[in-house]
Each structure stands twice: as C-alpha cells, then as structure tokens.
C-alpha cells in the first residue's frame, strides 16, 4: 500500500516535472482521438440519414383483377419471404383515394371509375439491396399486372451509403492506428529524457516492476487526459452543429445519444490502453538487464 502511494506520487510528480513533453503527448492523443471519434460520428450520421431516406415502400406490385382469395394467398406468400419486412394491401377503393390525392390539382382527371384502378401490394424490404431478387421472384405470376421499383435510385443510394460509410470507417481505423503510434512515440521520448533516472533506479536495486509502474500510470494518465479532451471536443462539436446548423438543412445532424455515450466510453478506454501500450514499449528497452 505504501509502495503504491509512493509509485502514484512518483507518477504524478513526474507528470508535473515534464510538463512540456507530457502536454505534447496529451495533445497528440487529443487530436487523433478527436479525429477518430469524429469520423465514427460522421459514419453514424451517414448511416442514420440514409436509413431515413430508405423509409417508405420499396416495391409496389399492381395486381390483375383476380379473386380476393388469390390476392390474399399472394400477400401471405410475399410476407413469408426472408427479404421482406412488411406487406400492405391497397384495394381498389384505397387506390382511388390515392389517385384523387395525387391529381387533386387536375380536376379533369378525377372523373374516373374506381373499378379500373388496380389493387396493389406494397412491400417494405429489410435491405433495399435485395429488391432485384424480390422483383425476380414476383415476375411471371399471372395475378400480377406490373412490378414497380425505384430501382435506379436504390442502386445509387446504396452505393453512396456504402462509399461514405467505408470512407468514415477507414478514416477512423487509420487515425486510431496513428494515434497509438503517436502516443507510443511521445511516451518513449518522455522516457528517453529520463533514462538517467531509470539507470539510477536500477543501480539502487529497484525491481523492473517498480521502475515500470510509474511510467505505466503516467502513460495511462496521459492517454486518458487526451481521450477526455477528445470526447469533450466531439460532444461540443455535436451540440454546436445541432444548435446552429440543423434548422437550415434537411439532413439530420444529431446522432443517437446511446451511440455517443457508448463510443465515448470506448474512446476513453482506448486512450488509456494506448497510453499503457505506448509506455510499455517505451520502457522495455531501458529495462534490459
């Protein structure tokens, strides 16, 4: 217990003594983790927004005039497919309502017999990428007059989503690795500046762990401080965006609070870990007997 207090005291007094090198390490962690976290939030924003754009009916199946029984069994069959999230039926009356709404500003077209309008089944998919499979399965069925999808838009949207997501995630990974290297390097510099102290410690018979622990605590503290600053920066940036930008755009800028909290914790842990890893590799070469 006494030793632990001594070691903690050592770690903190050395943080104080080497203020310049320490702030370099903290700032480098701060910047890289802010970028990592920012990239993650960006990718989440992309995901949330594209998910929103994907809402609505994905496939509309117009039916021939067939008995209700056939319509019902077709509906059940479609419902049972794995790709399908939900199915809604719209009969001739429902189709007439929609028709009236659609052409409300063109009264000349409204004079139409409801019975000529086709009933339809509206399909929502789990994943819009599967629309081709579903369309293919529907084709050739005698009860179906026509299958309609926004196929081109689907392809474009999912390509854009994928590209943006990959970009943001790739950025996060690259910056994450960069931050570990940066932390390791900065802590190594801090340790190199104190190699005399380490050699004296070894001279008077300090065990390797005794020498290592203050550096590990120090590295962890540095990583954690940088991570805390990074998390604060991202939260601040988020709330700034929400308060100042959102009303002028159609795009949503607020991410789910649960997402933010979970990733904030992950970033803190990552910062502390990166600090520990950095100082472990930094100390190792000075501890060879």
């Amino acid at each position, binding site marked *: 217990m*006494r*030793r632990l207090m*001594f070691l903690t005291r050592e770690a903190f007094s050395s943080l104080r*003594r080497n203020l310049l090198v320490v702030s370099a390490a903290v700032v480098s962690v701060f910047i890289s983790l802010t970028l990592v976290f920012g990239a993650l939030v960006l990718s989440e924003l992309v995901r949330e927004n594209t998910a929103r754009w994907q809402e609505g009916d994905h496939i509309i199946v117009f039916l021939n005039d067939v008995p209700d029984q056939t319509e019902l069994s077709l509906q059940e069959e479609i419902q049972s497919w794995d790709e399908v999230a939900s199915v809604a039926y719209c009969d001739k009356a429902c189709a007439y309502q929609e028709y009236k709404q659609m052409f409300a500003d063109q009264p000349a077209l409204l004079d139409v017999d409801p019975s000529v309008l086709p009933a339809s089944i509206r399909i929502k998919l789990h994943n819009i990428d599967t629309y081709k499979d579903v369309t293919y399965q529907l084709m050739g069925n005698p009860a179906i007059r026509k299958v309609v999808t926004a196929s081109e838009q689907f392809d474009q949207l999912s390509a854009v989503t994928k590209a943006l997501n990959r970009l943001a995630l790739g950025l996060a990974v690259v910056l994450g690795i960069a931050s570990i290297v940066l932390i390791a390097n900065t802590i190594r510099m801090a340790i190199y500046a104190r190699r*005399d*102290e380490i*050699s*004296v*410690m*070894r*001279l*008077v*018979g*300090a*065990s*390797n762990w*005794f020498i290592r622990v203050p550096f590990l605590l120090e590295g962890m503290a540095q990583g954690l401080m940088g991570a805390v600053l990074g998390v604060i920066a991202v939260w601040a940036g988020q709330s700034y965006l929400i308060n100042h930008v959102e009303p002028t755009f159609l795009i949503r800028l607020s991410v789910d609070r649960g997402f933010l909290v979970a990733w904030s914790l992950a970033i803190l842990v990552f910062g502390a870990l990166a600090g520990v890893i950095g100082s472990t590799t930094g100390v190792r070469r000075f501890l060879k*007997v």
Partner: protein
Amino acid sequence: MILLEGVTKVYEGGTVALRDIDLDVKKGEFLFVVGPSGSGKSTLISLLLREQRATRGKIWVAGKDITKMPGWKVPHLRRSVGTVFQDYKLLPNRTVSENVGFALEVLGRPHSIVTRQVQQVLELVGLQTKGDRYPRQLSGGEQQRVSVARAFVNRPPILLADEPTGNLDPATSVGIMRVLDRVNRTGTTVVMATHDHAIVDAMRRRVVQLDRGKIIRDETRGTYESVNGRNDA
C-alpha cells in the same frame, strides 16, 4: 564476500577485457584495484554488479552465484551492493535527501525510517546541513559524498567504487577516502577501482594490480607501484 574463479570476459569483436581472474575478497576487507586505463578495472566492477555477464568462470557476491542468477533477481543483488561512480549519477531534480532516500523508497521502507536513516548517513558523510540542497548547488566533492551516502544508506554488505575520486582534486579526494574508510570500519567490504597513486599509497590497504586483463600483483598492504623485493602477498 566476493569470490571469482577463472573469470574471463571477452567483448563482442574479440577484445579480451579480463583473462582467467581468481580473486577472493573477505568480509570487511578494503581492496584497491589498480592499473592503467583499459586494464579491466571497470569491467571487473560491472561484472560484480551483473551489468554484464562473464564469458567464462564463476562469480559469487554476498553468498550468491551471480553467473547463474536469473535477470529478475538482479535487483536483489544490487540492494546488497552499494555503488559509487566517477560521475556521481545523482538525479538533478531531487534534493540531497531525496537522492539518498531514493534507495530506500525503492525498497518500500516507511517514511519515518527513510527520514531517520537518511539523516544518519548524511551525518556519516558530513552533509547533515545540506539535505535540502540540490546537487547543482554542491561542489564535486560534496556531490560524491551524496553518492556515497546513497550507496550506503541501506547498509549493504558490499560497496563498489569505480574511480570515485577521478573528477576531484587531491584535497577533496582525501575527504572522500575518509568517508569510504568510515564506511569500511562499519564492517562493509569496499572494492575501489582507481588509478590515484597518492590515495593508494596513503591508505596502505590490499592492492590488486591488473594489466591487460590479468592480475599481476596482489599485496595485502600494498602501494600503487610494485616495490622490488617487497611482496606481502
């Protein structure tokens, strides 16, 4: 206390620093290791500290065979061997008391004991009033006394000194030697590598002379240069 049997140290590249050394140092002895630069004095000291491993032969220090000792036990070895170097090796950002106390903190001694023992050992080296100074505020001789105090504060059975007076003027060196003599009188075995003629001749202790890695003289009350017709060994 220290025993070497057939110890040879060959550095990478083939330089032979020590050749087949046999040496027995008894408890409480004061031993000078003399010889010109490159004769192997410093290599001998660093082998005793296990800073390097002997190429051949066996070395016992404080009852332990250190040629077989695993790396993680080396810190324990160093706790029973105090060391003093030519360049003091003090930490510049710690006070005299902190520098000396460091050796005890490392062992996990309680604060009250650290304070008391540091005070005692500072009295022994004559620096009791300078505990709060920083190394840069002290003269070379005073800094070397601090380093002797640090080496001795946990009362190790052995004290190794590698050219402790190498950076000091003759008058100051005498002061350091008095301190080392005092340490030796407490029963501590002292091994000192030096090429300071005056000191060796004045102290009249056991002298081992090295030349190109071999022991060429071992006298119990020797001088720096061998005297013809006189050999106590």
